[in-house]
């Protein structure tokens, strides 16, 4: 098994693709944590823990769920809203959950507004601006998610989670695969379950996103 671990950065300007370091994707029913295959149940717990530990736990919904392509997409959007509302209910004073869209993948120049959106070609801007220290990608096409996750690992210390509808993302620190409405709801249940049991990172302020 690869010795390489997918950990919060800043790793360096061009972090290697985790796949090139021997990290492989989970099989159905599994997930990965830091590049090591893990049972899915353990990943729910760890993802919920990371969310509840973060100062600014953030969900980044992508085009596959922001746009109502079909009924399934709209239902996922509802589940994501539920997860966000659950986070808001479960965090402690001083923690600030956010829900920031990635509406499309255009390399928007000359600028984006990092307060209201994230762009896969410079996701670090949104992370730095909002001091996001834990984020989850959901509804982002694989190649754009991988690009983005690598940039985040390269330039920030943000913990990344991927709720991937395909085979998972080795470039995230934690990745689910075969994302569905049920899986998003289950993650929300885990957040509820762990409410009050996780110490937020507030005291150790330096641990947040860095530039």
């Amino acid at each position: 098994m690869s010795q390489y671990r997918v950990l919060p950065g800043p790793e360096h300007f061009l972090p290697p693709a985790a796949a090139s370091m021997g990290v492989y994707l989970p099989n159905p029913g599994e997930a990965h944590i830091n590049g090591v295959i893990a049972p899915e149940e353990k990943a729910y717990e760890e993802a919920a823990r990371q969310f509840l530990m973060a100062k600014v736990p953030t969900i980044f919904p992508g085009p596959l769920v922001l746009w109502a392509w079909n009924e399934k997409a709209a239902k996922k959007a509802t589940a994501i809203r539920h997860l966000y509302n659950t986070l808001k209910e479960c965090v402690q004073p001083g923690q600030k959950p956010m829900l920031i869209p990635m509406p499309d993948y255009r390399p928007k120049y000359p600028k984006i507004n990092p307060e209201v959106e994230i762009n896969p070609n410079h996701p670090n801007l949104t992370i730095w601006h909002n001091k996001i220290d834990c984020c989850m990608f959901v509804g982002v096409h694989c190649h754009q998610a991988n690009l983005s996750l690598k940039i985040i690992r390269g330039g920030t210390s943000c913990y990344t989670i991927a709720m991937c509808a395909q085979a998972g993302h080795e470039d995230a620190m934690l990745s689910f695969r075969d994302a569905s409405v049920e899986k998003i709801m289950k993650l929300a249940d885990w957040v509820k379950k762990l409410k009050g049991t996780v110490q937020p990172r507030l005291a150790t302020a330096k641990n947040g996103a860095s530039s």
Partner: protein
Amino acid sequence: MSKERIKISEDLYDIMPSDYQDLVKSATYGKEDRGWKDIGNSKELIEQHSLCAGCPESMAFRYILASLPNPEDTVMVGSTGCTSLVFPMVAVHNIHSLFGNQNAIASGLKRALSVRFPDRVKDVVVLAGDGATVDIGLDMTLQAWFRQEKFTTICFDNELYANTGGQESGLMQKGFVAKMAPVGKLFDKVRLPEIARESGCHYVVNCTVSKPSLVEKVIRNAVHIAREIGPTYLQLYTPCILEIGKNSMEGLQEMRDSEKPTERFAYKEYISEPAKQLLAEMAAKDKERKAAAKQLAGQA
């Protein structure tokens, strides 16, 4: 073709940036008679641009995007140059190709789209600078026309390589001296409209973008003819005010001066016989539609 397909998920609507909400609410996707007159009354398909202030390319972009007959099912193919800085702000699917390859990319794309969506009209429109179209990409430009590929090629002719600081291009005028071409052009402006006609284009227009109504007409014609018959080519003068030493507000006058009957951008048009027939059929249908609408209005 309709706006029905462009919807934001209800539960995430409020977090979408306002430009996307506006696109869904008031852009003219799906509007049959969309055109330049919608500018100012609806959300434009261009958000902002990073061109020089007053650059006529920005006018051209706005008129073209307002006039595409089928924007939600159109893919534009761009190339490196000043135009490529605008595409990220455009709400029409687009692909950035390697400099000069745009007509090769568009050929494959158009064919793939016809296989993938046999029952849906999909338009492909290339938009590139003169350097990309006539110099480095000339092979790809011509080969696509020889093969009768069914898409439109638009060349923003600013008569030099603007984005890299003013090098000589095939479409530059003879004798012109640019910042990075100090000797002066030694040969004539390449006659690409004539070459396009001889290479098999069914609709060729050479003009400026000083009149939005004219841009609307030629864009609609070019896209419809490409969809039904074969390749079409538009060469639009979008002067680089920066390189020819004009101020921001002088681009329009420069175009007006260059379109006078004796000048190089005097309106020039070629239409093949099958394309003429198609345009006549379209005009007849349009007339019928307008008469029916008038009758309906009279009854109401």
